[in-house]
Structure formats: structure tokens, C-alpha cells
């Protein structure tokens, strides 16, 4: 396995411009990226607004996936039931976690947050492990019907659903933050909680709400991803790091930024996987990510 770039790739680029497979690659990348954005939007909310580094984020996604799994195995239900339930349950869990842990570690240094959320991640992950075991589970393809064939481009219905919801969630969160009074209260607290308090806004409640919304969105993401990805207690590790990269690339706190960053990462991953080789695609993503941070430290759309 030498470190040589696949020469074939260059040929493919030339023929690719007119090639159809490349379109499929890009479409696939966009869908993948939308999924990344979906499970990162909750994180950017929390990270940007409350300055909390949540190492347990990936495990919240995992919990959402398991809710969908339980809904299927116990009730035979699909995402219509699983997704809202996951959103509600995770939002509730979010509130509990906020009052039990986050509120206190928020006041501490970043280290305390990493420490606390890392412990939380292990706790959640292995509680699920203890209950459900280590086996990989999947939801059947039939749950969210099959694959569409649009002009020869194949799109999995389950991914399309997740992608569509990603757009809706991004829009929804953005509107919530910028157009509603709740949103402006939340932003006020994030900006300056003392000043907000003086204006009659209760920082504690706003932060709990923000956290709950973020957790709910994450649970929703998990429930939808469960339709096409494998479900296992340790999946949080893989997804967590993707979310971190997406959020920092997009700019902490920017929900539209997370969407754009997610889409960008998805397409770059997909293209480099096809043109250069799958083992290098993560290298490409991280290199671009690092370069980006060095030259534009506030991310794509972050405010700093």
C-alpha cells in the first residue's frame, strides 16, 4: 500500500466532466453532507450559544438511533413515530442533563466541560451497551422505501428524507433564533447573560431551553440516520468527531454555517473518495479543515 495517488483519478476527472458517475458522486456527497449538517446543528447551537464543548454529542445521536430502533422492534413503527418520539425523549434528557450537570460545568473552565461531557459520553454509551448489548442492529430498508432513480441518479429514500429534514431543521432553528422572541432572548443570554438578566430574562431557563432544543434536534437526527446506518452503542465516537469538524468549520453558533460546512465536507469527502481513494478522503478533509482554520479562524459563517 504505497502512498501514491491513484493515477486513474486524473483520467476520471477529464472524462468526469461529461461523466454521469461524477454527478452521482456529487449528489451522494450532498446527501451525506446534509446528514452531517443534521446532526451537527444541535451541537453548534450549544457550542455557540452556551460555549459548552459537548463530548457526549455523538452519544446523543446514538440515543436517537436507539429510540428509532426500539420503536421499530417493539411497535413496528417507522420514522413517522420514531422521529418525533426521539425528539421528545432526547429533549427531555437534555433538560435533565442540563440541570444535573451542564449548568454547573458551564461556569467552570473549558477543561471541566470536556471532563464532564466525556464522562457523560462514557456513561450514556455503556449504559446503552449494558442494556442492548454489543450487536450491530439495522432497520430494514423497507421502512423508508427503497431507492429513487432520477434520470439515472440513484438516491436512497431514507437519505433523501434525512437530507430534507436537515434543510427544514436548519431553516427552523435559524428562524427561531432570528425571528422569534424566544430566539432573541436566547441570543441575548448568549451575548451577555448579566445584561440579559437585567432585562428580565432568566438565563437559566433560556439555556435549559437552548440545550433542550439542541438535544431534541440531535435525537431527531439520530432517528432518521438509523434508517440507513448501523446502530451500535459505540457509533457516537465516529459521529461525534464529524460533528465537531462540521461545527467548527461552519463557525461555532452558526446554524446556517453548519449546513454549508456539512454540505461542503460531504461533497469533498465523496469526491476525494472517488478520485483519489477512500483511504485518503479523511486526510483531504482534515487538511482543508486545518488550512481553513488557519486562514479564517472564525469558520465559514461564525461571528468573532
Amino acid at each position, binding site marked *: 500500500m504505497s502512498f501514491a495517488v491513484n493515477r486513474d483519478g486524473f483520467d476520471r476527472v477529464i472524462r468526469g466532466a461529461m461523466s454521469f458517475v461524477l454527478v452521482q458522486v456529487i449528489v451522494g456527497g450532498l446527501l451525506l453532507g446534509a446528514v452531517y449538517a443534521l446532526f451537527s446543528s444541535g451541537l453548534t447551537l450549544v457550542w455557540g450559544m452556551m460555549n459548552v464543548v459537548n463530548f457526549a454529542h455523538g452519544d446523543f445521536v446514538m440515543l436517537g438511533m436507539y429510540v428509532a430502533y426500539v420503536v421499530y422492534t417493539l411497535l413496528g413503527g417507522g420514522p413517522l413515530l420514531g422521529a418525533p418520539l426521539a425528539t421528545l425523549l432526547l429533549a427531555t434528557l437534555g433538560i435533565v442533563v442540563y440541570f444535573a450537570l451542564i449548568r454547573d460545568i458551564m461556569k467552570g473552565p*473549558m477543561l471541566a466541560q470536556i*471532563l464532564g461531557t466525556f464522562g457523560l459520553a462514557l456513561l450514556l454509551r*455503556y449504559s446503552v451497551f449494558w442494556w442492548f448489548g454489543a450487536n450491530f442492529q439495522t432497520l430494514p430498508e423497507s421502512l423508508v422505501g427503497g431507492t429513487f432513480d432520477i434520470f439515472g441518479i440513484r438516491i436512497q429514500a431514507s437519505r433523501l428524507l434525512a437530507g430534507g429534514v436537515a434543510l427544514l431543521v436548519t431553516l427552523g432553528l435559524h428562524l427561531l433564533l432570528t425571528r422569534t422572541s424566544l430566539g432573541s432572548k436566547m441570543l441575548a443570554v448568549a451575548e451577555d447573560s448579566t445584561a440579559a438578566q437585567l432585562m428580565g430574562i432568566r438565563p437559566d431557563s433560556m439555556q435549559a431551553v437552548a440545550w433542550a432544543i439542541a438535544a431534541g434536534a440531535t435525537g431527531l437526527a439520530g432517528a432518521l440516520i438509523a434508517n440507513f446506518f448501523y446502530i451500535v452503542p459505540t457509533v457516537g465516537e465516529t459521529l461525534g468527531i464529524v460533528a465537531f469538524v462540521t461545527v467548527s468549520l461552519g463557525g461555532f453558533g452558526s446554524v446556517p454555517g453548519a449546513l454549508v460546512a456539512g454540505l461542503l465536507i460531504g461533497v469533498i469527502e465523496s469526491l476525494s473518495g472517488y478520485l483519489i481513494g477512500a483511504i485518503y478522503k479523511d486526510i483531504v478533509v482534515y487538511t482543508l479543515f486545518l488550512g481553513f*482554520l488557519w486562514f479564517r*479562524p472564525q469558520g465559514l459563517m461564525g461571528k468573532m
Partner: protein
Amino acid sequence: MRRAIWLLLALALVVAYPLVFTTPFQQRLGALILLYAIAASAWNIVGGYAGQVSVGHVVFFGCGAYASMAAYSHFALPPLVGIPAGIVASVAIAAVIGVPTLRLSGHYFSMATIAVAELARLIVTNTEYLGAAVGLSGPTVPRTVFDLSFISALPYYYLFLTVLLITLGITWWMTNSRMGFYLRAIRDSERAARSLGAPASRVKLYAFMLSAGLTSIAGALYSMMFGFVDPESGLGLLISVKMLIMAALGGAGLLFGPLVGAAILVPLEEISNNLLGGKGAGLTYVVYGAIIVLIARFQPGGILALINRLWAKRKPAEAPVAQRAPHAS
């Protein structure tokens, strides 16, 4: 004077530990605590004292580990010979990425360090010379004592103790030097420090490079004790996180914080694993995670900070100057 007495007493206890607790497992546990304490203390220089939370420090750890194993695998030299190479490599990496990365603030800095470490891991995974995914092994049968491949953990214990004392000594010297003075100022408020003329960028960079070099020594020692390194065990994200949480749990920015953190977390993980791991129900980590959550929740400044506070309360007349936990920067 009292402080010196306590120090000596503590040192005596640490030196005596493996002579009192003599089973191989207990001695090895002690050696592991010291090894992690070295890594966490090295991290502490940049993460605790300078307030730059690096979550990618494992890249330096890996430099040392891989340099040592490569010295043996490719050149049949004792792994020890790899230590200087590892130090050079890690300091070089720190210098090169330090300049653009230390400019970044808080969370962006941490993410950038993660990216660097992951890049290193991915590149090494695909590099045949460094063993790719299979990894590199050290001497299976020691040829000379310099191979540092012992059956008993006792020599490792004292070797690591020596290195730890040197590391702490360097940290102590640095804290009391002008550089330490600048670092404290930067940690409290970088802007204020700069406005007062502190050469912030240069000082942060030096701290970063110093920390990198010391971390690589920890990595080299690790690879010699276990005789093996691969991308996951030498460059995995979990190692960075472990270094970090040991320092944080014990007390970041305090000299003995990382040692306290290691002394708590390493036995905790090993013992939960011994008691619960074999059942295969994942309970080890439920317990481990829960305890970490509790400590983070109730003592975000770290255990040592708590102990110091309690001690200060008992003897108000002799209370030392309170040391604040590092702020989020």
C-alpha cells in the same frame, strides 16, 4: 519549611510504594500511573499553565513512540536511541503548527489540534515505513539492558519516577521563571498581557514546544514498556483526552495536579475493569464515566484544588496564596 517536609514525606512514600506493594500487577499499576502522570504533566505546561487546551497532544506522544519503535524495527538499535529523534520531531511539529494554531482562540485552537493529531494518525496508518495499520514492534527478547524490555515492572517504576521528577522539575523551574510569569498573565487575560508588553505569541510557542518534547518522551517510554505501537494506541484521540482529563481532574495549572489525576483515574479504570470488565456488560465504563461526571460536577477545579482549599481552611495563618483554576480562554 513545612512544605518541604511534606514534599519529602510524599516522595519517600512514592519511592517506597513498589517495595511495599510487591505483586507484579500492583507494581505495573504504579508504573502506569507514573507514565500517564508524565504525559499529563507535560500537557499541563501548555494546557494548564498557558491555558491553551490542546486536544491533539497525542501527536507528540506518537512521535516519541514511533521514533523508538522505528529505531528498533528499521535499524536494530535500542529503542532508547529513538528518544532524541522523537523529541526533535515533536518539537519541530510543535514549532511548525504552533505558529498558525496558537493564534486561534479557545475552541478553535482545540479543534485545530484535534485536526493535526487525526491527520498524523491517518497519514501514519497509510505509511508502510511506519508499519501502516499493523504498527511497529519493539524487541521481543531484550538484547541488552538498554533495550529497556523488562519482565518486572520495578525498573520501569523507578525509571518513570525519575523522568516524572525531571518533568516536574522543569515545570517548576519554568513557572518560577519569567516565562512562567508571562504565561500566568496570558492565561488570565491575553489582551491585557499583550498590552503590557508580554511577548505572548513567543511565550506560548515556547511553552508548546517544551510541552511537545516532554510528551514525546512519555510516548517513547510507553512504547518501550509495551513493546508495540500502532496508529490507535500511539496516535489515537483517546490518549489526548486521557492526558487532558487527568490533568483536569487532578488540577490543571497545579504542579502536582496531573499526578493526582493519574493516581485517581488509572487505578479507577484498571480496578473497574478487573472487577467488572470480564462480565462483558460494559459496566466498567458506566462506573468510570459516572465517577468522572461526579467529579466534574462537584469539583470542576480538580481534586488537588479541593485538597488545597480544605488545607487552607484548616490553617488560615499559614494559608498559601490561592491559585485560581485556569479560565476558559
